[in-house]
């Protein structure tokens, strides 16, 4: 029986369910100190003075002057410091680090900082600081708009979203070999390694080891470089292990969130419902530093025209600076924002035409052979119509759309897609590697991809087992330790299966050839062990131009159609989702139960984005930074999620698999908004809280 396609026993063992799995805060080292970050209490200005108003006995104190290398978090740009030197650009910006053996003394230490304050900028629409600009142009949108029979305009907004991984950010830094080992809750150990090498110097002896990680969703993609650097600075100065764990309040206030967006659409259509022009303006609030805004903007813009064919498209994207904590990666990475906008816009266009919303989408949906906004010609693995038809059929959409009118029930849908892997030449630049080791105990996978709940260990082992034609039980997965495993690139962008899994498949095929007819055990007994390491080989047909932003943006796309069924309380505007049907095509599932878990979990997270999760900002910082006041869905808030997994294999993926992790995030918010439109409320913003709905215009 093959491993791929079956619900094999997971490589995680039972430790997560017994309490034996070790997360960052579970680690204890002899002589360990606790760390604490002293953060700015103003959103913009300069530090004037710092007074340490406590007994320094037993304390380690670190400021920017303690940085041996460069005080820069090395990411896309090099603008963000690990520790403030003088300029403060956002609330909760890290200024000082303390460590002490005694948590009470540590928390009681009083640091008095005086500032020269400046006027902060919070409104992205007022900001002139452009972190990134992207323009995607196809055809002649102005001429097409002028010639269109009908033009519909709309502006759509999404707010911050906080990840709320149930395990907050945390690391333990341990001095070793003249350098430091950092153990922690990270999605991308090699990102942290790169940042630490910049902080300490390229010759510093550093390794980063991922501990069992309690959720990531992008919130532990780039942020851990910061906390790892802080812990490492304290560890090296004190000569002792330092545990730096954020409590929930600090994590929510100080770490990254989803970029808020304002997206403007102008859509030109013919009388019979064909889209002839799409003009889209995307504005993302990047916060105070660049971090990942350029790539979030990139993915958001590439998806901004939705899964529709249109000969004349212009997408103008800007990510701008505000004096708020920098925003960063969050599952979907720009696409949930722009696909919310385009999907609500599509319903509004259909309404304006007097056309059925399904018929309008079906007419305009991308098919094989059509070109996207960047001019990419889609191949056979294009499933927009298939997912739409299945969702509509399965939910009895047309009948409910008619029969719910005038009642407290509503139904709406969204059609969406999600490119798998890094954009354009991104994968080529990442140049990821994967390695298989033949050892005494069997075959070991040595990749930098991390298990964060999505099933990395299991899914990679399944791919290797079948490609190598050995029993799945004989495959081990190495803990991601940067001194041991290959740099497979970050665990993000729905690439861990499709890209890294593919490299592993190639490694396994090569290993199989070398093994000949021998089993791994027999080969080891006769010849000893060996390793196969390979790097990513992009499909030879991909063409992409970073300057014109044209070409094959992604090797393949996942496709989805979500249908949201709601009940609205007319007295209180509370929205109760009764069912969310998620029809998703992602090549084929490697482990069906794990794949279903990604869809159910991502859909629930999308429902939170749609209805419940509102970040309240006051003076440039999150004011509702407690789980009491930032409300994610509980069991009673989450409806039945009906998952349909359709297959349309992608030849370039391992066993036909595409990426899956982010796709489910793109659908729920617009499906919910479109259901609310069906109910009669003109929703153009999420979260669609009862307060918002009580002020919404009626349709």
């Amino acid at each position, binding site marked *: 029986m093959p491993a791929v396609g079956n619900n094999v026993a997971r490589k995680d063992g039972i430790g997560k369910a017994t309490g034996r799995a070790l997360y960052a805060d579970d680690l204890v080292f002899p002589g360990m100190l606790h760390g604490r970050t002293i953060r700015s209490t103003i959103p913009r200005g300069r530090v004037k003075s710092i007074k340490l108003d406590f007994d320094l006995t037993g304390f380690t104190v670190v400021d920017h002057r303690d940085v041996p290398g460069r005080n820069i978090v090395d990411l896309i740009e090099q603008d963000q410091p690990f520790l403030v030197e003088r300029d403060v650009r956002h609330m909760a910006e890290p200024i000082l680090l303390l460590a002490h053996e005694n*948590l*009470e003394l540590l*928390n*009681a230490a009083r640091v008095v900082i005086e500032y020269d304050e400046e006027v902060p900028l919070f409104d992205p629409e007022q900001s002139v600081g452009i972190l990134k600009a992207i323009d995607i142009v196809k055809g002649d949108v102005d001429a097409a708009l002028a010639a269109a029979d009908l033009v519909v305009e709309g502006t759509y907004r999404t707010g911050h979203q906080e990840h709320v991984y149930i395990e907050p950010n945390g690391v333990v830094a341990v001095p070793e070999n003249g350098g430091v080992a950092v153990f922690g809750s990270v999605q991308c150990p090699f990102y942290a390694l790169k940042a630490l090498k910049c902080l300490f110097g390229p010759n510093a002896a550093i390794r980063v080891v991922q501990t069992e990680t309690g959720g990531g969703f992008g919130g532990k993609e780039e942020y851990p470089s910061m906390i790892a650097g802080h812990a490492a600075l304290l560890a090296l100065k004190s000569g002792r292990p330092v545990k730096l764990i954020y*409590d929930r309040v600090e994590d929510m206030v100080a770490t990254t969130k989803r970029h808020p967006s304002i997206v403007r659409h102008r859509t030109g259509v013919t009388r019979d419902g064909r889209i002839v022009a799409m003009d889209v303006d995307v504005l993302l609030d990047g916060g105070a530093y660049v971090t990942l805004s350029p790539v979030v903007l990139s993915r958001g813009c590439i998806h901004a025209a939705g899964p529709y064919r249109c000969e004349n498209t212009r997408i103008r994207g800007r990510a701008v600076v505000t004096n708020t904590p920098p925003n960063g990666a969050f599952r979907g990475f720009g696409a949930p924002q722009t696909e919310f906008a385009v999907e609500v816009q599509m319903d509004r266009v259909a309404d304006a035409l007097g056309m059925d919303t399904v018929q309008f989408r079906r007419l305009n949906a991308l098919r094989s052979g059509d070109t996207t906004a960047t001019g990419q010609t889609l191949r056979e693995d294009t499933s927009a119509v298939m997912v739409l038809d299945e969702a509509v059929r399965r939910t009895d959409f047309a009948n409910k759309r008619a029969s719910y009118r005038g009642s407290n029930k509503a139904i709406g849908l969204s059609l969406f897609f999600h490119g798998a892997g890094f954009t354009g030449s991104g994968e080529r630049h990442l140049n990821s590697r994967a390695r298989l080791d033949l050892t005494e105990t069997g075959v070991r996978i040595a990749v930098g991809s991390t298990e964060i709940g999505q099933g990395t260990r299991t899914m990679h082992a399944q791919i290797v087992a079948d490609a190598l034609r050995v029993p799945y039980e004989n495959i081990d997965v190495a803990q991601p330790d940067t001194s041991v495993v290959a740099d497979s690139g970050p665990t993000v962008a729905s690439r861990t299966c499709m890209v890294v899994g593919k490299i592993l498949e190639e490694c396994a095929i090569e290993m199989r050839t070398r093994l000949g007819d021998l089993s791994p055990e027999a080969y080891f007994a006769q010849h000893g062990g060996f390793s196969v390491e390979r790097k990513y080989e992009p499909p030879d047909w991909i063409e992409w131009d970073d300057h014109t932003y044209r070409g094959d943006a992604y090797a393949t796309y996942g496709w989805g159609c979500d249908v949201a069924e709601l009940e609205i309380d*007319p*007295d*209180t*505007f*509370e929205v*109760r989702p009764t069912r969310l049907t998620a029809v998703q095509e992602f090549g084929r599932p490697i482990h069906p139960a794990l794949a279903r878990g990604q869809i159910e979990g991502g859909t629930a997270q999308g429902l939170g984005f749609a209805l*419940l999760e509102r970040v*309240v900002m006051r003076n440039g910082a999150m*004011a*509702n930074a*407690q789980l*009491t*006041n930032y*409300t994610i*869905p*509980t*069991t*009673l*808030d989450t409806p039945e999620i009906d998952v349909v997994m359709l297959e349309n294999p992608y030849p370039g993926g391992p066993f036909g698999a595409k990426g899956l992790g982010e796709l489910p995030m793109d659908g729920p918010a617009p499906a919910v908004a479109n259901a609310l439109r069906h109910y009669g409320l003109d929703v153009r913003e999420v979260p669609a809280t*009862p*307060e918002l709905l*009580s*002020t919404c215009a009626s349709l």
Partner: protein
Amino acid sequence: MRTAISELNLHRAASVTDALELLRDEQRTPIAGATDLYVALNFGTLTPRKFVDLWPLHELRQISMKQNTLVIGALATYTDVIRSPLVARHLPMLVEAARLVGGPQIQNRGTIGGNVANASPAGDSLPVFAAADATVVLLSASEERRVAFREFYTGYRATVMRPEELLVSIEVPPIDGTQWFRKVGTRAAQAISKVVVAAIRGDVPRVAFGSVGPTVVRAWEAERMLASGASIDDAADALTKDIAPIDDIRSTADYRQRVATNLLRRFWSETARV
């Protein structure tokens, strides 16, 4: 956990008398279910450093009848209320309220007395007791005081309780009429109320709201309208004089105003005799 535990002092009460004598002699903050304790300490809204633990005092946990008056011990937890046949029969709207507090873990520890004494304007049991014209029974080393619920709160998070007093029980007289309860929270479970209402449709209507003012409020003007035979529209207008909702981190004054009015109408229509 940001609070220095070593600076805190806890005395475990051995009996009610022990607790009362201690409170007579020292300033201590009583704790019971403690569901708000560490949150308040960490947030800085609670600065007292000396506490007395009432949790061992089982005699305060009882739910019983005194003739036809329902007596709810201060240490009765939400779970105790949910499981109590007496409360189910005599004060079902309190069972509804208890089911909607937090989740099971909170229901297993949070106490009715704590909810009442904590005096949050969003306390979910408060409108129930306000509508039911309950009596709060306070005990000190020297005397017992019985305070009408409508007189218990003096302002935002302020009660008539003296530092040496313990809240020992809430007494609810028999209720003639249909009980009605509705909580509008931030989500379906683990939610703080944005608007919460308990109402009784008897010979005269009694309606109490939480989260629409600094304390729980009886909708006196609206009640008077309805009792005098005025229309529900007039009563809804009158309601605006009874409540003073604000914008806060969870909701808006406008929303609360609108929803409170809608819920008054909904109560009236749902409890109308057919």
